Each structure stands twice: as C-alpha cells, then as structure tokens.
C-alpha cells in the first residue's frame, strides 16, 4: 500500500504540471497512466504536430512539450506507474483507497483525475464473433511473437504497427496484410518494403478489403474479407492481428460515483473538485461553465487543485502563497543554489 499526499491519474501535460505544482507547495505525489509512456494525447495522438497556443512558447510539437514538462519536473522525485489503469477508487476512513489493474494500491486524501478523454484502448474489429477469439487467435498487440512461427497470420491496418509486424512476421510465417484503402499511413520505407515482399510472394496484400467474418469452432480456422465492391475472399488463417490505432474510453472513471456530463466530470471552479470531497478533475476531462479544452486551461486547473489538496493532506498546517522568484523554501525544493 503506497501512501501519498495526492495521486494523479494521467501523465499528459495537465497531470505533469499538476505534479509540479504539488511538489512546489511541498506535497508529494505519484502518477498512474494507462499508456506505456509519459505524455498522454500529446505523445499518443500528435507527437509531431505543432502546437501554437502554449503561453510563451510560439511553437512546439506534442513531443517537445512533453519533454519540457518532464524537464521541469527534474528537481523532484516523482514515481510514475505506467501501463497501469486505475480501476477502483473507494472511500475508507476519510481517505481514498485506489487500486490499479496490476494490483498496485494507494491510500491518499487526494485523487486528481487528469485523464484527458479517458484511457486509450485498442480499436477492435466490428464483427461480434471476434470477441470470442480475442486473446486466443485475435490480438490487438503482440506480446509473444514466437507463437506465430510457421502459422498463417492475417494482419489488418495501414499504419506503422501493421506494416512493421507484416514485415517482421513474414520471415517465419505466412502473412496476409489487409487494409481498407490503397494508401498506407505508415513510413514510406516500410510501405516500399511491404511492396517488395509482396512481389517476392512473402506477403499477400489485399487493399480495399475489410474483415467481414471470422469462422472456427474451438480455434480460428478462416476469415472472410470483403472489398468496397462487395467481392468476398476466404482466407485460411491461424491468427488475426488488428492495428487500428487507439481510441479513448472513459472506462472505470464512470464507476466512481462522480457527476458526469457526457464523457466529462463536473467540477467547481475554485478547487476543481468533483461532487466527491478530495477527488478533483483537471484538463480535458473536467467540465464547468465556460470550459475551454486547451492545454493552458489544464495548467490553471491543476495549479488550483494542487492548493486544494494541501488542506486535506496537511490539515494542521496553513498554506502560504509564495512566488518561485522570491521564496527560499520553494528554491530549496527546486534545489536552486543561491
């Protein structure tokens, strides 16, 4: 059981800056994120896209913004729990008991939800019967590639994951690559490589086709794919891999007894607190009159939520507002030598 002054859910820009604010005022915190890396939507959805509306930064990419926010946290010791999703938040003796899908447990007076639009989950195949074979014959990520050796694999998708795995698995397996259009969004060098492998008969390429059905009794036997012109092909296959990118789902947050408005959490604008005392929501996931879904709004919301955390984490102390330019205590925390 990890004890902390505040637990932040989400390691996107808002979560990172909120951690900075907590540490500046002398509170400790830990951060959980479902992704395997720090940065949230900035890193997952638009690492290369330039952003033009971060105050005092005329232009930066999602990746650069993330790097700068991590650099800003360097003076502090903050534990990240990546590839973990918070599943449970329960009240116990005036504190919040938080549990992740990997079994990590926290006890804290403050939970700050900086979860963007929820957690990223793989986009799955549309045909219903796919669920039966999921994690047996149908996968949305590769954990152990050795199981594919000598087998027939049908890979769906047009991005780097689909292309890279088609190339990699074609060495030891029979690979079908299926994509809904002729153009691939993956790296050109990978597209060229796939075309070479197609010419040499190593990869069967089906473009303008999508999955129609999967068939098999105990194990997957074959699949049917259908073209834009309704042409149907049957492919014998042992495994199916789907790489359609990630979608965002509110996920377990919906179960924590919070007031929700569509996919957002309703908060006040003083503490960014939800209807549950000690649970806050900041960044894209929060909702209040006039809410702007901008990164800069998340920074402001996190700064105020951090101050609210102080009251619950240090009930016997009085919070004093101080500037980083003049406060000796803050400079100490930052490790700045005078």
């Amino acid at each position: 059981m990890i004890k902390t002054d505040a637990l932040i859910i989400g390691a996107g820009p808002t979560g990172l800056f909120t951690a900075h604010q907590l540490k500046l005022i002398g509170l400790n915190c830990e951060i959980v994120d479902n992704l395997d890396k720090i940065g949230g939507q900035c890193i997952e959805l638009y690492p290369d896209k330039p952003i033009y509306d971060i105050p005092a930064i005329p232009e930066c990419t999602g990746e650069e913004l993330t790097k700068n926010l991590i650099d800003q946290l360097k003076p502090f010791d903050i534990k990240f729990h990546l590839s973990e999703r918070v599943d449970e938040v329960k009240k116990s003796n005036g504190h919040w008991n938080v549990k992740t899908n990997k079994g990590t447990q926290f006890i804290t007076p403050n939970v700050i939800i900086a979860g963007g639009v929820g957690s990223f989950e793989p986009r799955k195949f549309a045909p219903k019967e796919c669920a039966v074979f999921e994690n047996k014959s149908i996968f949305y990520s590769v954990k152990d590639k050795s199981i594919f050796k000598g087998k027939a694999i049908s890979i769906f998708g047009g991005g780097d994951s689909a292309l890279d795995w088609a190339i990699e698995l074609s060495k030891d397996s029979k690979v079908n690559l299926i994509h809904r259009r002729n153009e691939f969004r993956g790296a050109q060098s990978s597209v060229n490589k796939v075309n070479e492998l197609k010419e040499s008969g190593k990869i069967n390429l089906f473009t303008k086709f999508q999955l129609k059905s999967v068939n098999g009794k105990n194990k997957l036997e074959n699949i049917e794919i259908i073209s834009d012109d309704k042409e149907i092909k049957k492919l014998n296959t042992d495994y199916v891999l789907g790489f359609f990118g990630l979608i965002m789902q509110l996920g377990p947050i919906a179960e924590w007894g919070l007031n929700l408005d569509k996919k957002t959490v309703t908060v006040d604008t003083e503490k960014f607190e939800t209807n549950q005392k000690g649970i806050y929501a900041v960044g894209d996931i929060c909702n209040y009159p006039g809410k702007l879904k901008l990164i800069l709004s998340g920074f402001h919301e996190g700064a105020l939520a951090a101050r609210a955390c102080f009251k619950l984490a240090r009930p016997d102390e009085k919070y004093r507002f101080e500037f980083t330019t003049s406060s000796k205590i803050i400079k100490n925390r930052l490790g700045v030598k005078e």
Partner: protein
Amino acid sequence: MAKITYIEHNGKSHTINVDNGLTVMEGAVQNDIPGIDADCGGSMACATCHVYVKEDWLNRVSSKTEGEDDMLDQAYEPKSNSRLSCQLVVSDETEGLVVNLPMKQV
C-alpha cells in the same frame, strides 16, 4: 445557413439548420444530436465524429485530405463514403446535406 440531416443508425432522422462556417460535427454537438462523440474537439486527432455521406453528396462536399483518411483508418466500420464530420464545413452549397451515423463511434 443550411439544412443538414443526420440519420442515426437506428433510422431516427434529425434535420436542423446549421450556420455557415460551422462544421457538420459542431452542428450535431451543439444541437445534442446523439451518435457523434467528437472526443478531440475537431482537431482531426480522433475518429469519433465519423459519418457516412449520402452517395449523391460525395462529390459535392469538399474532398478529404490524406490526414482525414489516415484517421478514418481508425474509425468504426469505415466505408468508401466515410468522412469525419469535423472536416465538413457548412455553407450555402451544403443545403440539404444528408449524413448517416455509424452504429457507434468507439
């Protein structure tokens, strides 16, 4: 202003007036038409405002960019008439546009 018709997957139809300059996505969100999520808020960074444009309208709306088609790869059940409604800007030319909504967005 233009009349835009949104047909839900269950067949329920909504026809509303949308101001010129707004997107078909914004028209739906501002009028609480169910079936369009628009998680990313219109920055073409997700595929949750996915619609099917009625065939006879396909050549009359602005053509899709490569970036939009890239995102549509990640949509639920994309078809050849799939579009992201955040990229369809309403104008006098879109008077009467009809879009069908997919079974789900996520």
